């Protein structure tokens, strides 16, 4: 009961007129900036952080949280409508963009919004009841366990890719290799930088994402001589009841997966999207449609992403450890405001902690209220003729790349990845696993080397530790399952071919 009492206390703080206003402003501005290609939550928060300097602490944190969620939703809008993702919306490019091609953009955006709401709600229930104790879960994970967890993420790829398992793994490995570019954290050696100074910090995520998705997609559309038909039809925003019913189970599954994976430091939201998508692809009633524009393909991943984004606040607020770059920025914002996140935060600033928890939910409601009517305007993108639209998208890609480091050199990197992305596209290689490998690769290497260092070069730690052992066993089962399914299928087809007629 105490948890409910705390939550009510939080809502009391979140629901003041001022804080509601800050939350609404944050959501709207966040969505608008997040919509622009290349500006993900990280860039959006760092751009808008100065806006919060003059606002009282509670309101500022609530506004930042609003910006964060708004930017995430904006990202999924650009992924669904233009196939330009950021880390939080890679999976939305697969089925979401397919739905756009099928003329169901409105439904896809609505699904993403509602599923985020459902996922967020689940995560808040988890946060409210378990936050104080859950933070310690992260302490249970050693380097070997993180390695195993990331390998699970890679195996999820085999379920995600639309092509073959081999292609998915290959792209994943290429992603890991691309993540190696830059300075080696352990020894300081510059690797694969071709003696270019601006590569010493590695290749930017934005450059890879814009090149492999955005620019490759633009060129593909140009190759097809595609005059995208102006969008005249009536946009059906509110789904029919059967459609709505399809959203709920996927969103619930995604929310549960996301809530759990979000707690774990390192790549939680990214793995969560892929995991939720993979699970839907296996267990959904409509699994045969996933990949060609199914509601489930959008709902599960959106819910998981949102839930993981929420629960990733748990390690920050309960043990004071930011688990990714966005959380590190939030930590900075907390400290600027004179609040030190950590074990004492719940005790010392209960109004801030519970207010933030409550405001997350309020932010979600705002996103739905603001965005569902605004989707109509997002869709007006399609009324612009493609000959005007594509130079504009290129412009936003340039600005997005430039603004990360204020470096024009990064634009050359983006162009190089545009070419690589185009080759991938033409060779029928899916770029989504590449992003997973790229994001997780450096963490995988770090933990792999650390685990071997602790085990003095012995691989035993990977199998004897309970967590990593279980995860590796899970991988074994998944791979075996996949192989058996493959052989059964190929036998069935060869038998069918052998039959006369």
């Amino acid at each position, binding site marked *: 009961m105490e948890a409910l009492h705390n939550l009510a206390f939080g809502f009391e703080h979140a629901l003041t007129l001022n804080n509601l206003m800050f939350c609404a402003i944050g959501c709207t501005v966040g969505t608008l900036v997040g919509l622009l290609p290349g500006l993900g939550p990280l860039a959006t928060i760092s751009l808008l952080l100065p806006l919060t300097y003059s606002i009282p602490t509670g309101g500022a944190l609530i506004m930042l949280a609003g910006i964060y969620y708004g930017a995430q939703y904006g990202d999924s809008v650009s992924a669904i409508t233009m196939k330009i993702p950021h880390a939080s919306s890679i999976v939305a490019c697969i089925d979401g963009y397919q739905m756009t091609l099928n003329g169901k953009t409105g439904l896809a955006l609505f699904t993403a919004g509602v599923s985020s709401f459902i996922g967020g709600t689940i995560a808040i229930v988890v946060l409210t009841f378990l936050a104080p104790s859950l933070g310690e879960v992260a302490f249970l994970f050693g380097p070997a366990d993180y390695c195993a967890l990331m390998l699970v993420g890679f195996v999820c790829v085999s379920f995600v890719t639309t092509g073959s398992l081999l292609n998915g793994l290959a792209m994943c490995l290429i992603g890991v290799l691309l993540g190696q570019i830059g300075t080696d954290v352990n020894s300081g050696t510059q690797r694969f930088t071709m003696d270019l100074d601006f590569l010493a910090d590695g290749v930017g995520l934005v450059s890879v994402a814009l090149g492999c998705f955005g620019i490759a997609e*633009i060129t593909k559309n*140009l190759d097809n001589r595609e005059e995208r038909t102006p969008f005249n039809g009536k946009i059906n925003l509110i789904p029919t009841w059967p459609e709505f019913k399809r959203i709920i189970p996927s969103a619930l599954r995604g929310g549960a997966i996301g809530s759990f994976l979000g707690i774990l430091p390192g790549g939680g939201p990214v793995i969560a999207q892929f995991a939720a998508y993979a699970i839907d692809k296996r267990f959904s009633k409509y699994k045969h449609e996933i990949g060609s524009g199914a509601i489930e393909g959008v709902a599960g991943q959106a819910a998981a992403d949102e839930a993981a984004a929420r629960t990733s606040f748990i390690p920050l607020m309960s043990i004071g450890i930011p688990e990714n770059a966005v959380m590190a920025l939030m930590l900075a914002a907390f400290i600027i405001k004179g609040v030190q996140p950590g074990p004492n935060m719940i005790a010392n600033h209960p109004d801030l902690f519970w207010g933030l928890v409550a405001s997350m939910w309020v932010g979600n409601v705002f996103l739905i209220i603001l965005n569902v009517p605004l989707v109509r305007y997002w869709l007006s993108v399609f009324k612009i003729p493609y000959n005007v639209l594509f130079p*504009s998208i290129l412009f936003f890609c340039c600005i997005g790349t430039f603004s990360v480091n204020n470096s024009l050199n990064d*634009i*050359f990197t983006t162009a190089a990845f545009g070419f690589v992305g185009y080759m991938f596209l033409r060779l029928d290689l899916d770029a989504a696993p590449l992003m997973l490998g790229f994001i997780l690769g450096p963490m995988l290497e770090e933990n792999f080397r650390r685990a071997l260092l602790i085990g003095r*070069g*012995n691989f035993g730690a990977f199998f004897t530790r309970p967590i990593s052992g279980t995860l590796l066993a899970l991988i074994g089962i998944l791979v075996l399952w996949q192989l058996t399914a493959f052989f059964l299928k190929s036998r069935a087809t060869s038998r069918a071919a052998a039959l006369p007629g």
Partner: protein
Amino acid sequence: MNDRNLVRGLFLIAISLAFGLQSLRYPIGSFSHAGAGLFPLMVSSLLLLIGLITAVRSRFMERVPLNLNLKNIALILASLCAFAVVSATLNMMAGIVCMVFCAALAGTSYSVPRNLKVSAGLIAVALAFQKLLGLNLPLY
């Protein structure tokens, strides 16, 4: 050579060799004290294996023609590079104009007035970014 599956295999092999051979130049170390080259070497060997399997398998599969249209991708990349080069030497407004005029060559139709209008619109957006959001753009 006009076989997508074979080219895919060769492409993967090329990437794995590019990274793998380079990583041999870094200290490899041992498993207990991994050097900078160990992990990339492991990953690129695995990739090499997948590339070889793909290339060999393509011999037993039906050929799929590879459609490459290098003109459009070349134009798009040229427009991005033009933007970066002109922004660095002159200023970003000129960069935007260059980019729009260069990229538009890849479109289905070419019209100078339309390019001018698009450039003007984008410059206005860039100004708004600079003034309202405080982005640090070297516009002029």
